[in-house]
């Protein structure tokens, strides 16, 4: 099967055609938003990072900006800097330009305040949108897609229906030669040995176990034992017996294909197939990790229902909770009806077909209702 996508100069294929307005520090966020508010066709990425960062977090935030901007759904980029933040704005702009993507930087302290920067930014963005609008959708093989998956507002139905259905859709794409990525390291705890068994090499398997342990140790240093306190009392009342059962339910959103490689938060997979990106279970910064990894369609599994989307990537909301689907129909795109006779793989196939439609331009509810500009960036901390 195929889909209609936007060809990019670096050979990647987008499912959307946005001009991104990215503030490189929170101090520039309102100015960036004002530029975007005035130019249809632009999307801002709002966050509160960019300054007072430890060296490892500075590197993380730099690569997150770079790789977000390289997402194939973005046609051109306006970077809005304050001027005194430690972010490597020149390096980021250079890397974006190397991909063949138009990029401009605006430094508020140099341009001379918000009004002058907004005026300049609006002119630049207007021109970029005009040029981007000439890029036409072309037909591409489905293997050119990259899926991401995320779960949030989870309940018992997430591990039984919506996560496995997303996993089945992942399997279809990966078997056809496409790419897929999932994250949320904290949710691997107790099932990391099973993920490690699916790694393509013992080395990658060890890295998966090490990545989970590193995350756990950050909490243990603060006196919090994430493994010992899971499953929670509420989980047990809901029917979950062990931490491995809980984690298996969560990781089923990554499907069953071999794991090629693992990456740090904000990194972009270098290999095709299924990858893991290290990151928190917290929905918003996790969506940022999936977008920075290059996902062009994201599945979001939810039990309780949530409106949250991603600025540059269409997010398909999936639930297997019938009551949530009825109550939150404004926000949920796809219902996995567990009482149907179809097995999960058949439901996953229908979900995959929906993803191809979305890839070709069908708007998701999070896009239509504009639930997408604020996702934020994860940092390890502490802040200075």
């Amino acid at each position, binding site marked *: 099967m195929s889909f209609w996508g936007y060809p990019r100069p670096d050979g990647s294929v987008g499912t959307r055609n946005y001009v991104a307005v990215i503030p490189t520090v929170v101090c520039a966020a309102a100015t960036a938003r004002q530029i975007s508010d005035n130019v249809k066709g632009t999307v801002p990425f709002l966050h509160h990072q960019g300054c007072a960062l430890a060296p490892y977090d500075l590197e993380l935030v730099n690569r997150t900006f770079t790789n977000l901007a390289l997402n194939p759904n973005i046609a051109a980029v306006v970077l809005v800097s304050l001027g005194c933040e430690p972010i490597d704005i020149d390096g980021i702009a250079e890397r974006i330009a190397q991909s063949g993507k138009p990029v401009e930087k605006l430094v508020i302290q140099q341009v001379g305040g918000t009004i002058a920067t907004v005026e300049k930014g609006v002119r630049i963005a207007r021109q970029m949108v005009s040029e981007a609008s000439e890029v036409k959708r072309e037909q591409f093989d489905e293997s050119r897609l990259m899926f991401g998956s995320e779960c949030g507002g989870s309940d018992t139905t997430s591990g039984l229906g919506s996560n496995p259905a997303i996993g089945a859709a992942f399997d279809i794409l990966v078997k056809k030669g496409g790419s897929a990525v999932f994250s949320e390291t904290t949710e691997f705890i107790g099932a990391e040995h099973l993920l490690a068994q699916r790694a393509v090499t013992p080395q990658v398997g060890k890295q998966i176990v090490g990545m989970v342990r590193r995350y756990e140790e950050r909490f243990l240093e603060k006196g919090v034992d994430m493994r010992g306190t899971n499953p929670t009392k509420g989980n047990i009342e809901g029917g979950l017996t062990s931490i491995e059962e809980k984690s298996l339910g969560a990781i089923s959103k990554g499907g069953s294909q071999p794991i090629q490689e693992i990456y740090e938060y904000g990194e972009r997979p270098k290999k095709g197939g299924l990858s893991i990106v290290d990151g928190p279970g917290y929905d918003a910064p996790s969506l940022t990790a999936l977008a920075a990894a290059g996902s062009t369609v994201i599945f979001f599994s939810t039990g309780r229902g949530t409106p949250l989307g991603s600025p540059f990537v269409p997010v398909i909301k999936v639930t297997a909770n019938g009551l949530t689907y009825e109550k939150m129909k404004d926000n949920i795109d796809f219902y996995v009806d567990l*009482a149907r006779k179809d097995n999960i793989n058949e439901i996953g196939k229908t979900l995959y077909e929906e993803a191809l439609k979305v890839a070709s331009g069908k708007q998701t509810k999070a896009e239509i209702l504009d639930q997408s500009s604020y996702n934020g960036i994860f940092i390890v901390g502490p802040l200075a």
Partner: protein
Amino acid sequence: MERKAIVLNSKDNVATALAELSAGESIALEVDKNKSSVKLVNPIQFGHKFSLVDIKAGATILKYGEVIGEATKDIKAGEHVHVHNVASTRGRGDVTKEPAK
């Protein structure tokens, strides 16, 4: 007919209830086109698990085709499977025993 419980993988020895189920009820199950039926020993709440077969103490409990714990006592087909008769194999205890990498 609507499904009352789901078996997620053909290797599994437990099913998960999709509704509130009563003791004595016969539950029809299907996984990968293989059909079976289990008569419930206990009432099973939505989201809780019951055994598809007799499971011996010490045997592994399989869901998603993977080990989710070990039986701490003999479990009969149709019996409630939960923390009272299953122990995790991946709690804090086993991790601290592993050699440092």
